[in-house]
């Protein structure tokens, strides 16, 4: 009689996604610890840091200006009819400035920067990894982490808050133009009302959280790009994954920041 052949079923992993999520979190933690270890240790790559600040900050000004202007304009135009119903049109400058400074400008600017900067860094480092440029730095006795990663994360951490402040300012200008489309409010009166409505409690927590947004945008871009697998496909994946993770992270951090601010004040 022919012996019965028993074919073993392939081993199935329970929750395979969970395993990879834990592995990714572990890798990201090690990457972050390495950043904090290397950021304070000389030699410092000042020239590259300035170059990255220029690239991340200055080169994003137009995009942030357009977005900020539209945010202020649209917010004003959309809220005006409702405010008019309650006879509260005079509150529009204050309402718009508080909304922009506390929430809308930081989150929208950070999301725009996640799309532009995080994906850019992810694609750049991913492509350097695939074409062995990072290995080339390593074998010539240069620390690529310090040159590529530390500079980009520090530049993003410093530049995003500045871009958000710029977006706040442009957004308020947009609101002033929006309010004057169907009305006549003097510039002096509008800006006095907009600025007087703001308190340090509006400004400080909102600015602090933008440093975290900036750090996260730079960090995720670098982490995804620096750890890209071999092959050109992984460059696209690194860029895409950087945008998705950074955007999601911004929302989660914003939620936490709001809870913490409410708790403290």
């Amino acid at each position, binding site marked *: 009689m022919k012996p019965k052949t028993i074919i073993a079923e392939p081993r199935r992993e329970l929750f395979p996604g969970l395993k990879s999520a834990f592995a990714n979190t572990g890798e990201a933690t090690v990457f972050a610890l390495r950043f904090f270890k290397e950021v304070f240790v000389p*030699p410092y790559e000042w020239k590259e840091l300035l170059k990255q600040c220029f690239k991340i900050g200055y080169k994003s000004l137009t995009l942030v200006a357009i977005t900020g202007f539209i945010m202020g304009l649209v917010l004003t135009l959309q809220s005006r009819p409702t405010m008019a119903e309650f006879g509260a049109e005079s509150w529009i400058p204050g309402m718009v400035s508080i909304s922009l400074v506390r929430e809308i400008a930081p989150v929208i600017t950070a999301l725009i920067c996640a799309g532009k900067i995080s994906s850019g860094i992810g694609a750049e480092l991913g*492509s*350097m990894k695939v*074409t*062995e*440029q990072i*290995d*080339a730095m*390593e*074998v*010539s*006795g*240069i*620390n690529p982490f310090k040159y590529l990663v530390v500079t980009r994360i520090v530049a993003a951490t410093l530049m995003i808050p500045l871009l958000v402040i710029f977006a706040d300012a442009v957004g308020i200008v947009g609101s002033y133009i929006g309010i004057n489309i169907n009305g006549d409010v003097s510039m002096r009166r509008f800006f006095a009302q907009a600025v007087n409505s703001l308190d340090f409690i509006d400004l400080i927590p909102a600015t602090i959280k933008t440093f975290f947004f900036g750090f996260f945008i730079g960090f995720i871009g670098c982490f995804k790009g620096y750890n890209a697998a071999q092959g050109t496909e992984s460059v696209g994946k690194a860029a895409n994954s950087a945008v998705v993770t950074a955007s999601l992270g911004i929302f989660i951090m914003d939620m936490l920041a709001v809870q913490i601010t409410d708790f403290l004040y």
Partner: protein
Amino acid sequence: MILTERYLPITQQKNADDVIIIKNLHKSFGSNAVLNGIDLTVEKGENLVVLGKSGSGKSVLIKCLVALITPDEGEISVLGTPIDGLNYSALNALRIKVGFLFQTAALYDSMTVAENLAFPLKRHFKNLTDKEREDRIKAVLDDVGLVEAIDKMPSELSGGMRKRIGLARTLILEPEIVLYDEPTTGLDTITSREISELIVDIQQKRKTTAIIITHDMACARLTSDRIAVLNEGVIHAEGTYNELEQSKDKWVQSFFNV
């Protein structure tokens, strides 16, 4: 019992002429065992060619020498220094003495040729003036015959030119050892020959030791003082080009009878 030299720790094997000693090197990627116990020594001033089919672990072998890949088992000594356990700064100090030419040349895309060459110089020879740095860049570009490409971007260079500039960037730190990862792959016959001649020229002029990874027999013939043939993760045969050409071994012959 007397231990044969094969089993002596790397630190106890003192032959002043051996600049690279590899003992019982193993490396696996998952279930794929790439290196299964490589034993190899390279003498000072020698050009050793490592032959092997694609995917046989040739590149993995030389990447282990500069600690780009960490082996699972085995010992490596480079210029008398065991690389296992070196801290990052000691490893970087050793890496300066070991040049590495990548298969793709790995030029920094965002920098000009001059900036590519100045990049390691600025970090390791901080005392050089701008003029001295420029002179050194021009001298090394002259050695590879590409002074006119000094202000070009890597995207403006042909495959052969990229390899030459990659080699210039490797040589600018004046390494004692140069590791060539498939230096002629993807190049036409004439350019391949030019690169092979350049490798010999560098050996003679700069007295460097080299490991050349290739499966290009013309390159192996021109550049090798000795050839090691890799098969199934071990050194299958060793000898000069002429010795191996006469070998009756089928695997060795498969490289010569193309």
